[in-house]
Structure formats: C-alpha cells, structure tokens
C-alpha cells in the first residue's frame, strides 16, 4: 500500500465567496518564506516516514500556481529528496486559470508535475459571478489549451453546480463545453453553503437564496447522464474519469492509505491516527522556523469512528460494504428503494443512492 503526500499552499489572488478552505488573499509576500518552511517541515517528518513508498503527491490550496514555476520545481525536487516517491507517481497541482500560461505549465511538466487540476467551476459567466470567481469562461478555454500545448495529458476540470441563478439548461451548457474539451477527469461538486463564508453570511441574511436541493439533484442526474454518455466513469460521488485516469491521490484518502500533509492546516493519517497542522500561515511559519513540527491537533479513531469512516469512505468510492456486514432488513429496504445494488457480494450505492449517501451511511454504519 503506497502513501500520499499532500502539500498545502494557502495563497490566493482573491478569495471566492463560497470557499471555506484555509486560503488567504494578500499574503503573497510570505510565499518564498512559506516554500522554505514546507521544505523544512518535510525534513522534520522525513525520518518518521522513511520506509513508506509514496504513490502520489498533491499540491492543493489555495492556489499553488500563485508560486513561481521555479519555486514549485524546487519544492518538488526537495520533496523527492526527503521522501521515497515511486517512479511514475502521480503528481497533481491545482491551478487557477488566471495564474497559468503555456510557458509556466510547460515548466511544471518539465519539473515532474504529471497531473493538472484546474478550477473551471462553470462556463456560465453568471454562475462565475455568483461564485465570486474573478476569471471568465474564456480564461478556462485559454488555460486548457495552454495545458494541452504544454504537453499535459492528465487534466481535471473542477465544476460547481447549484449557484444562485444557475438553471438546469445553463448547467447542461457547462457540462457540454466541459465534455467538448475532453479533459481526462471531471470533478462536479454541488455547491455547499458554508456558514463562515461571505456567501454563507449572505444566505443567512436572506440576501441570496441558498441552493435548491431538488434542483441540485436534477443537476447531479444530468451530470451522470452526460458524462456517462461521453465515456467518463463515475467512480466517486463527485468524480468522473476516463478509465485509468482516476485520481490516485484522492482514492488513497478514501481507501485509508496513509498520507502526510505538509503546510498550514494540512491533514495527515497513519495507523488509526489523524492529525492536522496549525491553520494560520503566520503561526505555521513561526513553529516550523523554530524547528518544531506544526501539529495543531490529533485524534485516535475509536472502533465506532473506524466503522463510520469505513462505511462512509467505501460507499463514496463505490467499493461498497460486504452484504453480510449490514442488517438484512436495512439492506433489503434500500435495495427495494433502488438506493443500493449488489455487486460481487457488496452493497454499492446506485446513482440515486449516491445523492442520499449520508442517509445510507448512517443506516449502514448504525
């Protein structure tokens, strides 16, 4: 079983209204100190993780591509020195369309980044406005073309559906434009309103309507239909890929493979223990620069936690749970309702079941 390495880059050009990740605009001046700190933190963990083979690296954010190509190249090189990366490891970097051009993308490819995950979100300007994204649909086309020209052959487009004003018809156009580009991987997320975000506050104050769950359900169905017809396999609730292009790194999380997170607020997991770094970048820098591991908290999973997580994670990636592990009446109810199906002695959610996954998890883990 290989391990994963996650590297968090908390910088963004601007903050999007819906986003509650650990990301900050206006901290660009900390960038080079931060890269140094990431390299230093890698050093603090290297001994403890010696012997683990890393099958994937994922630079997420934030917007990792706010860093220079040189910095990103140097960072990956240092990580290779500290950790045992498999030959042919998947190395993903998240990119914002406005922060990349062909030259930079080529340099990243040259440096060993094998997979590009681009935050497109939508091809409808109104939806991008509602999400407070600064780029327009044209930037996505330009950045995608640049990625191809730079030789990237494993590209993901991130989409978000259900923003205020989006209709089923406009979502269909977004899906169609996405499919026309033929990215190897598509992530389509239902917009979730997080209370501690500018958008969340607007929804709470009644200034903006929240997403309509039934419309989002229709949008999910449409995504299943159109992406399926286009040859994408639906391998996780929100993820589709051409065969062989499933994201190894994310599958690692769901399969409970060990992973090490570097950077502010990054999460790690190994041997039944989860821990996470301090979130504020300034605090992270301070701790690491004092030669300490920047761990902010941890938990050991109880058997009940393990059970809930197992069911939750295995249902998400359609591995399912063994038929015999579930109460017979509970299982037969869901089978009859068409929310679960049987596959190789396992109970696996149907597409309708994926949309009601919380219900399934709570009933099956109970």
């Amino acid at each position: 079983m290989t391990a994963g390495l996650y590297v968090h880059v908390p910088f963004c050009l601007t903050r999007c209204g819906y986003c509650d990740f650990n990301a900050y605009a206006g901290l660009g001046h900390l960038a080079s100190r931060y890269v140094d700190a990431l390299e230093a933190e890698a050093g603090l963990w290297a001994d403890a993780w010696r012997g683990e083979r890393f099958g994937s690296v994922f630079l997420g954010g934030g917007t990792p591509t706010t860093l220079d190509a040189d910095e990103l190249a140097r960072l990956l090189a240092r990580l290779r020195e500290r950790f045992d990366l498999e030959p042919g490891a998947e190395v993903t970097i998240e990119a914002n369309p406005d922060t990349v051009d062909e030259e930079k993308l080529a340099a990243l490819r040259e440096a060993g980044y094998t997979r590009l995950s681009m935050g497109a979100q939508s091809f409808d300007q109104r939806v991008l406005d509602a999400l407070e994204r600064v780029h327009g649909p044209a930037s996505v086309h330009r950045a995608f073309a640049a990625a191809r020209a730079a030789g990237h052959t494993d590209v993901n487009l991130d989409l978000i559906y259900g923003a205020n004003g989006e209709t089923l018809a406009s979502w269909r156009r977004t899906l169609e434009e996405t499919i026309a580009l033929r990215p190897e991987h598509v992530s389509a997320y239902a917009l979730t309103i997080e209370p501690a975000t500018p958008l969340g506050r607007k929804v709470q104050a009644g200034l903006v309507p929240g997403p309509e769950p039934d419309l989002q359900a229709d949008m999910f169905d449409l995504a299943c239909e159109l992406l399926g017809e286009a040859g994408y396999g639906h391998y996780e609730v929100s993820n589709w890929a051409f065969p062989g292009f499933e994201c190894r790194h994310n599958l690692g999380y769901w399969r409970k493979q060990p992973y090490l997170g570097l950077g502010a607020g990054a999460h790690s997991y190994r041997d039944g223990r989860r821990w996470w770094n301090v979130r504020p970048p300034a605090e992270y820098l301070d701790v690491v620069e004092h030669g300490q591991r920047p761990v902010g908290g941890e938990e050991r999973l109880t058997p009940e936690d393990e059970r809930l997580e197992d069911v939750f994670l295995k249902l998400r990636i359609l591995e399912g749970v063994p038929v015999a592990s579930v109460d017979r009446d509970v299982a037969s109810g869901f089978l009859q309702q068409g929310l679960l199906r049987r596959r190789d002695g396992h109970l696996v959610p149907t597409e309708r079941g994926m949309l009601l996954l919380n219900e399934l998890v709570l009933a099956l883990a109970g």
Partner: protein
Amino acid sequence: MTETNRLRNFCIVAHIDHGKSTLADRILELTHAVAARDMRDQYLDRMDLERERGITIKAQAVRLTYQLDDTYVLNLIDTPGHVDFTYEVSRSLAACEGAVLLVDAAQGIEAQTLANFHLARDAGLAIIPALNKIDLPQADPEETAREVGELVGWDPKDVLRISAKTGQDVPALLQKVIELVPAPQGRREDPLRALVFDSTFDAYRGVVAYVRVKDGVLPSRAKIHLMAANADSEAEECGVFAPEATPVPELGPGEVGYLVTGMKDVHLAKVGDTVTIAGKHRAREPLPGYREPKPMVWSGLYPAEGGDYTALRDALDKLKLNDAALQYEPETSKALGFGFRCGFLGLLHMDIVKERLEREFGLELIATAPNVEFHVIRGNEVIVVHNPSEMPAPGTYDHVEEPVVLATIVTPSTYLGAVLELCQSRRGELIDITYLSPERAEVHYRLPLAEIIFDFFDQLKSKTRGYASLDYEPVGYERADLVRVDILLHGEPVDAFSSVVHRDKAAQYGRQLVERLRELIPRQLFDVAIQAAIGSRVVARETIKAKRKDVLAKCYGGDITRKRKLLEQQKKGKARLRRVGRVDVPQEAFIAALRVDQRAGQKAGQRTGGKP
C-alpha cells in the same frame, strides 16, 4: 397565644403585576419581620419558579407584629394569583377576615381584580381597596379611585393611595387593616376546627399543613383527625411563621400557623380540609367549602428518551407528594411509547409541572397538546375521556358534553369589537357587557373551556395591544357537537395527534394541522402522505416529497475528521426524532396542534405573563 381582639388575619388580592408581592415585602420591612440583611424581593415566594415568573404558586402565611395604640398581631396570607388556582385562593380567603384589594393606579381594574373581589366579598371579608404605584407618572389615581370606589361601594376620596415600591402610605394601609378588618371570632371552649389552606411535604417532617384555627385550640401534640380525608394522625408540632417556622405550644382561635401532621401522604391533608381533635372532642361539622381538586386540562407526558419511563414515574410520584391537585395515570401511545396522561388545574399548572419535572428531575419530555375532559353519553352511562384518541367512534354514543366556563374580560372600549369577534370565533355566547367607565368595558361570555386553553389569552392580548385581562370560572358541562380528528401519517393513524374539535371547525382544524406538520416533519426517503380524517372521511391531505439529496459534496485535502463529525451531528439530530411507523417525526410536531391557530413567531401556551 394572642388575644383575639388584637389579631388581624388578612390577605392581599390583586391582578397579576399590580404589586402584591412588593407590598408584602414593604409590610415585612415595616413590621421588622425580616432583618434588613435577610430581605430580598418577593420574600414570600420561595420556589425558584415563583421568583422567576413573578407569580405565587403556593400559599404562604407570615405572622407580624405592629405597634399602634396597642401591639397587634397580623397574619398576612399570600395567596396564589392565577385562575388555575381559584379554589386554592378561595380557601386562603376563607382563612382571613379581611382583604386588601390592590389596584394598579395606571392600569385600573382588571379581570382578576374583579374575580378576586367577588371571591373576597362572597367569603364575607372586609375589603380595603388601595391604589398602588401612584408614584408612576402614568398613574391616574382619580379615575382608578372612581372605578374602585364604585366596585366596592366606597367614596373614591377614602380609597388609599400608596406606593408599595417607595413605601409611601403603607403605614396608613396597615392602620386601616387594623381598624377595618374584624378580629376573629371563635371560642376556646368549642371543639377544634382548623382550616387547611395549603399543605406541603417535607422530606424530614412529612406533611406540613398551613392552618387557620376557626374554633377551639390546636395543641402542639395531639391526636388529630382530618375530616374530609377521614384520617387520624399524631400531630408532632405546631407553630407560626415569624416569618421562619417557629414552634408554639398551641394555636388558639383565630390564629394562623403550621401543623406538622405526622402524616406521610399530602393527599390526607388537602386544601380545604378541616383539622379537628380525634376522639370524643371531635367537631361535629367540618368547615364549609371543601372540594376535591379537579383537573381541568389533560395532557400526555412522555419521556423524550424511551428508557426514562421509570424516571418519569418516580419524578411524578415525588412531585405529587407536594401537589395534591396533580393527577396521572399510565398510558401507552403507539407513537410515543409508555407515558402518563396527566391532569392539571389549568395550563399554568401544566407548564409548572412540566418545567419542574425537567428542571428538578433532569427529564426531557414530550407533552401532547392539552385537552379538556370530555363526557361521552351512552344511555345512562357517562364515559369520561381524558385522551382524544380514546374518544369512541361516531355513532356508538348518544352525544358528547364538554366543560364550559364563564369568562370575564376587561378591555378598553376601543378593542371591544375585537374582543367580541374573538369570543364569537371561539363558540362564545355573550352574557352581558357593562362599563367600568366610558373607556373600559367588562364583558361576560360563556365559552367552551377547550376553546380557551390553547392560545386564547395570547390572542386576546395581541388583539388588544396587551390591555385586556381575562378570568374565568367553570360552570359545568354542556352538550356540544364534537368530533375526533385523526391524523394519518403514511396511512397509519398517529394516536398522539388526535384531537376532539367542534364539527364546524374540524375540517379547517385538520387542514391547518396537516399544513403545520408538513412544515415540521423533515423529508424522508419516500413520499409521506399526511392526512386528517374525521371517522373514515379524509378532510385534508398534504404530501412531503421524498428527499433526493443528502450528501457531503466534497471531501477535501484529507480532512476526513470534519466529514465524520458532520455525519455524527446528523446522527444525533436523527436520534431526536421519533420513529412513527416508518416516518421520523421531530418532537416539536407533537405539540403542533397547540399552535395551529397561530402565526409563526407567537408563543403559545402560557396564560400569564410574569414580571420581567
């Protein structure tokens, strides 16, 4: 023991918030009954609940001495002030010879002023009217004195004007009490008759009765006999409240105090019973006016967690030790499991019991919508129904009778139209309208009790901008065209949702309740039909569409912990739902019927406002 000619037994009666407890506090100070360092507001209200709500639930008595031409002993009896406790008030009044009728000079006469005045007059008490709060800028002493004078038959200029808050003219009031309240009658030689005007249960001393000796002498230790309960006991101690309990060798005629009865069951010393000496010195006739406590309002109480049934039973048993009016019997609901059908004197009493169960015993409870006691008449048989779901099927009985009250409403004349409209809409029958002044009317209505127990008082307040006041007394049972409205959830009748409603209102009630339940019950994994039915006829139907989406969209950067916590939260939320058949129902839904007539945001239930 005090010579009766220097004894005065009196109480203060007033509408809620007219300053009764504050006046009692001033009197305690003036008579030096309580050391200044021990003084606190609402001194006589000992229960936390009383102090928080600004109401008096248990009667209290306090013995005071006051120096005038001579040294007088005053017994001040603090009565409960709520319509739920009218009988208890009447017994407290029966323990007195006089009453101070306290009226807020800014508010004027209110419904409870009238009700208390009539009770006091019927009890033959000397009534001393007094206007309170004359220090307030909005006080209108001239007009209020005119109203009060007219009510009690005094020249308005003789009506005392005081401020309980500042103490202004409280001494003059005490002087009037001494002058006008007759000294108690009663002879030492007669057989003992002492009125029980309240009783409490003390874990160490057993049942302690609050008594007023009418005739004869109550010795400290004696073999006593409770006449209504027909029970004997060895009394262990008697004493007075000065204001803390202080033993005395005996209580003579006219005196007020406590009696440690030696009994272990408060139901043997109920309010209104007569204490006499057991054996040959026994009195022949009890004091008049005793009545068995009669619950007016019934509700099912169920533990929110199924396993707490035994804890609920133990808690009710303990509360009942101190509350002879509380009744309960076990019942089983298909929807709510094992619980109790409980009878209360009124909605306030119900609120208090529920709150004490939750607060003092740490229970979480589901209460079903309260209902009155119905009498189903079948030939010569009267079937008493305390739970709407037990109402027999239509066609299996002759008719149904429901309790009716005579309501007194005092309202500014400008809102008279709104008040009449409200009463008409509640199946009221107008008796008369009289005017206290050109601006204020006193309205009498016959109303079915069932129509006023839910939200009538809130509606009355909101339609009169808070100015109207209400009091009522039960006047018996009357025939009414009532039907049972059942609620079916996913095709299954839910007993806890059944209610008994007038036929003309049943369909509308059904529609409103169904609509409300549709809002309260979360979407399930399948369509859920909610129907209201009268017999087999469905009068309303709504559908809760199946939930389609319930999934955490994104699982970012390996933060599984957060996702798991969200799921755990959701699991906790589910645990608070009741599974009824296949449908998960939130606990709020079981009292939804309470709020059917109301717009969102209004608070239902509580009839009395407390002090802020």
